[in-house]
Each structure stands twice: as C-alpha cells, then as structure tokens.
C-alpha cells in the first residue's frame, strides 16, 4: 500500500513540473523512503525491542527456564 502511494505521487510530480522533475523526484523519493523506513522502524522497535531482549536473554548461558520468566520468586 505504501508503494502504491509513492508511485502516485511520483506520477503527479512528473506531470506537474517541467524538465527538472527527474532530479527533484529522486530527491523526494529518497526522502519518502527514509521517512517510510523510519516510521516502520519506529513501530517495529516499539513492539519488538523488549521481546528481542527477552529472546536474547533466554538464550544466553546458563539458560533460564520459562517459569522463571513469569513467577515472582
């Protein structure tokens, strides 16, 4: 869905402007891709960082048991 949106914008930009459009749209494309990548990274980090830490921790030596993760003792 995001890629469809970016193609649409690219089409519009080309139609609207003159011969400079190619350079500008590359620049805009790069900006859009970085913004899209940062947004996705932010969501992934928000939901996935703590599970990642727990995963790495549970696989480190000596391996703790699963019940130790949940019990308060």
């Amino acid at each position, binding site marked *: 869905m995001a890629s469809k949106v970016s193609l649409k914008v690219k089409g519009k930009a080309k139609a609207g402007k003159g011969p400079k459009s190619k350079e500008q749209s590359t620049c805009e494309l790069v900006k859009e891709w970085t913004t899209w990548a940062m947004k996705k990274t*932010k969501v992934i*980090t*928000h939901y996935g*960082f*703590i599970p*990642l*830490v*727990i995963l*790495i*921790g*549970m696989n*480190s030596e*000596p391996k*703790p048991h699963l019940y*130790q*993760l949940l019990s*308060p003792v």
Partner: protein
Amino acid sequence: MGSSVSLAAAPPPPVAPPPALPVGLAQVLPQKAEEKGDGKAAPEKVDWLDLPCPVPYEELQREALMSLKPELFEGLRFDFMKMLNQRFALSHSVYMGSMEVPSQSSDVIKVPSSHYEFGANFLDPKLMLIGRVLTDGRMNARVKCDLTDNLALKIHAQLTNEPHFSQGMFQFDYKGKDYRSQFQIGNNAFYGANYIQSVSPHLSLGGEIFWIGHQRKSGVGFAARYNTDKMTVTGYFDQVATAQVASTGIVGLSYVQKVSEKVSLASDFMYNQMSRDVTSTFGYDYILRQCRLRGKIDTNGVVGALLEERLNMGVTLLLSAEIDHGKKDYKFGFGLTVGE
C-alpha cells in the same frame, strides 16, 4: 614540587608547576624521579606521552551531579529487579503519586498519576540492551554495543504512541589513548559532536558543538575538569544561538571535595545569561555502611534530601523529601527497592 633535597649530582631545572610543554619536559623528567628519595612516597613521574583517558564528556560533572541532583520523587515507588541469569534481568516498577504539570503562572499544578513499568535488561561486556515499557504505551530503549575495542555505539530511543513525540539518538564514541570523541545524530535533525582531551594527569579540557535543524539552533560549549583523589573542580561554558532570538549562554562551575571515605561535599554555581539568573547549590553525600544519605540546599530556596537504607539482603528503603520554600511546593516520597 621543585624544591627537594638534591642528592644526585645534577639538580634539575626548577619545574614547580609543570608547564604544558611535553617535548621539553620529557627529557628532563627521568632525572627528577631519581632525585626524590625522601621519606614520603615518591610522586608519580609524569609521562606526558602516556596520560590517562579522560572521563566521557557527558560525565564531566558526575561527582557533582551524584550529590547535587539525587533522584527525588513524590509518592510511592516500588521497584523489583529479578535476575534470571548473570546477565539477564527483568524489572517491575510501580509508581503512584503526583506529577507536576509545567504551568506558565507561578502556581504549581500537580496531576495525580500512576504507572506500572516493565523492563528487561541484558548486560554483556560487549552488548548492553535495556528496554522499559510503561502502561501508557511509552517505551524507553537503550542499546550500547562495543563495535571494536575503541569504538562504541549507543542508541537511546523514547517512543510514544502519540505522533511526533518520539525521540531517538545515535551516538558513536571513539576512545583514544588520552582523548575521547563522540558524534551524535538525533531526530529533529540533531547533529552534535564533542571531544575531550587529557592535558595533564589531572586536567582535561573538552568542547562540544551541536546543531538542531528544525529549530535552527546551534550551540558551542567548552568544559574543563581538574580531578585529584580528594577533589574535583569542573567548569563549563555553553553558548546557544537561535535564528530569531539572540544567543543565550550558561556558565557553570562545580567543586566536589571528598572529605573522607564516607563523606563528600559538593557545590555548584550556574549563571544563565538569558534570564540573568544565578543559582548556587550546596550538597553532601554520606555513604555509610547501611545507608546513603544525600542532601542539598539551593539559593532558590529548595531543600532536598534522599535516604537509601539497606534494610536486609537486597531490600532497600527510600525516603525522599524536597521542600521548595519559594513556590511553596512540598514533595515527600517513600519507596522500596527489592533486588539490585
């Protein structure tokens, strides 16, 4: 330092305070070390080519901040840290109290709030991962990775569910033989760099620059730190320039004296150029066997203290008090920490 009983044949040239000329002195110093054979312990030979690595730039004032800015809180605080492993730990933290809402008027507005925070820590010598998530969806993540012996990467992110309120920062630290440099990239087009260098076994000087793109702010700062076993003196000078507003600056000085193994006293002075405000703080830090007591008093009329008492193996009681006589704001808190 230059006056000593000269038993050797050739007396050294008088070098009472060592000047900052490493080349000339390096030839002279070996003779000086042989000279000082009197009763007291021989002072260390200063090898100007082998100075110690300075503290990181952001920790320049760490002794002063430990005494003068203890983590005072209001309300109830309960922290539980459970070690599953030598390296892996989970932490649960409950807080119930009032949070202060910044207001324009001189009134203090407090909003009662409470949250539960879950965290996971993984500490390896080379990799450190710390994540904390709160009940309102805010997440705090820290990563510290040693890419090589000298180069370290630190990432700090504070993510929220609200758009445009999240912050992230990447820091690349390079540690040289007697210097440290750091380069930072953050969101809102924040770029910063700082550098600190040891110029003598006790003195280190550093500077930093930063640029915030979105607010068109840029800043320059210089700092110096003189450190011995017994005391630390630091000074800093920051200038921030904004596009529309005239530049502002902050000048600060701090002095920490370690009176004994258990007691240290600290004082701090800060001048804010924009608001022409001067603040001075005096504080103490008592590290005793069973407890740690830190207190401070301010020229703004703020008195604060924090007591951390180790009751038992792994259980610590926290008592915090902060009284602001100027704004008539009183904050008292108590808490318990179980685990480390």
